[in-house]
């Protein structure tokens, strides 16, 4: 009777994959061979425990190398990082992209979310068992892969090679997904009139020279001239509000971090874009990675943070690779590291990869993920500007927000605030997908109406539009004149959320759409708080009974049950996921959409 996991050893391939990320072990106490002074010297303490943040990178390393996390590999990683095996197992089983306890699996993740299903994803899924046969390739359904402008989408994971996106795919092409990277996506508008998208598809995302030739890094020089407080005051004048969903004023956040006491602070770019129907951050990270790096450098400079992270969604391998490359080029050019651009400011920036968890887009869950824990959100307060990553003051903003801040600093806060409306300033990106002729990311000033946006993308007869993704709400055709601003959508009981605009045509049966949304939340709930963990299950059950015409008791009782669940999830959940898990479904019911429970 002893710890059984000690019986399992890592293979050489697993060991070298882990060592490549963590370096060789220091001693027999952290996975090396036991010898020398090991028996007489104490190791451990803070130095050992502080390595935990490398847990996800180490799990990724073995997953990518051998296609799964075996018992031996998990044990070795636990030794290397001084993480209890039970906790490492808890982390590995939290994230959808890790396969635990088996290796050698090639997996095709097929998106069956509410946009890809409009483009035949169900038929594709139905054909896959036959198409793939049993040659060691497995396929799985996946939530939105962020390729909604070219649905249906799939993602390949192959041992030894890693991840590759493919879109659009069909039964034939899904068997032959290669590792050639996709373009970021088509920009349908005239780039010369755009601010946030002006470089996407135009400037070489792999070349610092190309970025500089387009005016890149001029804003950093300007920021250095302004000084930290000058930057923050400029942003306060810009009236820029966060684009991630919560619409928090950026000046307040940056000032909060800058004025928080203590020598250690962090800044984070939230690129864990996982809201169904949202792909703008992918476009920016893939198409303009140096702008993300420049914006983060300014973020660190303004707030006094010397360490930054870009947390990239695990399903975005191209974005991760390009950002990593951009960071190393910037470092070589003296634009990161000690003495950034001759300003005397030290700044280190690194990329962290998510592992398949929608919840990690929530800021405190994202902190937990970087720290090497399960992506479980934390109760606020305390707020991140006081106690964030590793318990230190932390600034965290969405990718689009950071690029908008870069633009505000480029043109000046006051001119920026003159764009859009008084309460919603600046340019805004919208991800238009579904039943439109030209799906893609569109940049419009705040205040453009929904109808104008859909005209740009070529919509036909509309049944409903889902604003803000699964966590957003449906609006009907009568909302076409609604200005797309924070204030106007709020007044209409809707939300801009993540900027997803998912269009459904007028013969849509919304029953399956709502069922998919309910399934999504049931799958993506972290499981921490009761209203969301059990509420999302009961919501899926009640919705399924209603649409199947087999209510428990009367239809009224079933509706009451749904309403009660919506209410407790909205009122009492820890984080935004639970608080919005009923929002789209409730809005569909209110609008009386065809197929929604009546």
């Amino acid at each position, binding site marked *: 009777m002893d710890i059984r996991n000690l019986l399992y050893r890592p293979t050489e391939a697993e060991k070298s994959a882990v060592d490549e990320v963590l370096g060789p072990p220091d001693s027999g106490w952290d996975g090396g061979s036991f010898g020398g002074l090991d028996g007489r010297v104490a190791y451990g303490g803070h130095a050992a425990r502080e390595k935990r943040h490398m847990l996800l990178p180490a799990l990724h390393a073995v997953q990518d190398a051998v296609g799964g996390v075996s018992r031996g590999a998990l044990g070795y990683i636990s030794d290397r990082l001084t993480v209890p095996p039970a906790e490492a197992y808890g982390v590995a089983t939290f994230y959808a992209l890790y396969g635990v306890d088996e290796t050698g699996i090639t997996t095709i993740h097929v998106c069956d979310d509410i946009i890809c299903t409009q483009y035949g994803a169900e038929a594709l899924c139905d054909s896959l068992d036959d198409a793939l046969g049993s040659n060691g390739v497995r396929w799985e359904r996946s939530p939105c892969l962020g390729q909604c402008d070219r649905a249906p989408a799939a993602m390949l994971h192959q041992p030894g090679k890693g991840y590759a996106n493919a879109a659009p795919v069909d039964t034939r092409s899904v068997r032959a997904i290669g590792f050639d990277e996709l373009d970021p996506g088509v920009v349908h508008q005239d780039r010369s009139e755009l601010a946030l998208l002006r470089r996407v598809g135009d400037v070489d995302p792999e070349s610092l020279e190309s970025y500089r030739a387009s005016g890149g890094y001029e804003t950093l020089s300007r920021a250095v001239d302004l000084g930290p407080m000058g930057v923050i005051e400029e942003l306060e004048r810009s009236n820029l509000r966060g684009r991630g969903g919560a619409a928090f004023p950026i000046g307040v956040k940056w000032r909060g971090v800058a004025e928080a006491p203590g020598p250690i602070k962090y800044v984070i770019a939230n690129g864990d874009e996982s809201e169904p129907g949202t792909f703008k951050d992918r476009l920016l990270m893939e198409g303009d990675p140096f702008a993300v790096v420049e914006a983060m450098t300014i973020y660190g400079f303004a707030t006094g943070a010397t360490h930054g992270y870009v947390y990239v969604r695990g399903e975005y391998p191209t974005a991760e690779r390009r950002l990593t490359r951009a960071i190393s080029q910037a470092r070589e050019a003296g634009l990161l590291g000690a003495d950034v651009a001759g300003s005397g400011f030290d700044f280190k920036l690194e990329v962290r990869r998510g592992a398949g968890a929608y919840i990690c887009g929530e800021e405190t869950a994202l902190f937990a993920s970087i720290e090497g824990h399960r992506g479980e959100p934390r109760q606020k307060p305390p707020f991140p500007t006081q106690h964030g990553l590793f318990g230190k003051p932390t600034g965290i903003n969405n990718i689009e927000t950071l690029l908008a801040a870069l633009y505000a600093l480029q043109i000046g806060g006051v001119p920026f605030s003159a764009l859009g409306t008084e309460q919603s300033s600046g340019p805004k990106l919208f991800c238009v997908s579904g039943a439109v002729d030209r799906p893609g990311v569109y940049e419009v000033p705040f205040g453009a109406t929904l109808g104008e946006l859909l005209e740009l993308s070529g919509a036909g007869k509309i049944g409903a539009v889902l604003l803000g993704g699964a966590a957003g709400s449906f609006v009907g055709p009568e909302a076409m004149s609604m200005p797309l601003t924070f204030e106007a959508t709020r007044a209409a009981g809707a939300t801009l959320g993540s900027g997803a605009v998912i269009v459904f045509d007028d013969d849509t049966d919304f029953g399956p759409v709502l069922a998919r949304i309910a399934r999504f939340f049931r799958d993506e709930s972290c499981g921490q708080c*009761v209203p969301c963990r059990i509420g999302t299950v009961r919501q899926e059950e009640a919705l399924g009974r209603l649409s199947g015409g087999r209510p428990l008791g009367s239809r009224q009782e079933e509706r009451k049950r749904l309403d009660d669940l919506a209410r*407790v999830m909205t009122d009492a959940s*820890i984080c935004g996921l639970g608080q919005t898990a009923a929002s789209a479904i409730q809005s569909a019911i209110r609008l009386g959409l065809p197929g929604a429970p009546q």
Partner: protein
Amino acid sequence: MTTTDRQRVTISASVDGKTVELPEGSSVLDACRSAGVGLPTLCYGPTMTPASACRVCVVELEGSRALIPSCSRELEEGMEIRTGTDRAEHSRRLVLELLGSASELDRSEEQLAGWMTMAGARSERFGPPAVEAPRQPPSPGHHGSPELAAAATVYEPAKVEDELYVRDYSRCILCYRCVDACGVEHQNTFAIAVAGRGFDSRISTEFDFALPDSACVYCGNCIAVCPTGALVGKIEYDMREQGAWDESSQEITRTVCSYCGVGCNLDLHTQDNRIVKVTSPHDHDVTLGNLCIKGRFGWSYVGSGVDG
């Protein structure tokens, strides 16, 4: 700075319109209790840091969009707290109903049944419990089609792996108390953690190995904090299964553990003059309710040879 120099700061707030004054560092729950309002708590045990997970103690706070967990929210000057609003009562009732619909609660801490009655919680409104099916290994992001006619539960067969503990996870409400007691809060053994995601999360050792094959040291401090009887001593489990467990006939005798010099208090629970369980008082300065394997389980010599 000595303690006498320190200014004792008092925070003043209102609970249901009644002004309360408490020392700095108190929680909203403390404030509610001092105003005479009893609120249920599940994930917050008397010796533990609140996990803020169960949400059964939520109250309304003026100016806050969502309800707040009273156990973990620090009291601030001027807070206006309302405990009896329709909204707060609705959430507390729904949380109890949801818990009852997913887990078996009939062996929970005594107060729970009272809270359910008081709140008017009816778990059966979510349908009869789904047919007992073994739980699958964790597969985050995926789940099978719901049964619809019945409510999914956390059912799994009780894990009886040794002579000391039973882990009966059909009763687990995932309050994190056992994980925290095994980990940073008390024991620092880290034998168990939450594995999987969402509704499919469960308390697990690495790869779900049996407890004797894990890092568990059998201190039983997880049992001591479990509020629902998911973790129990083997003797208690067997007696309950046989219908022989009768708490009303049990006597509790307080004594001091005879093994080492720490001096842990032991409460010997006896039924029919035989020890059936050993605990330590939660309010004991030294133990905080914790013991080691010897104190909690090493008593079989008591009375040996008396009646065979």
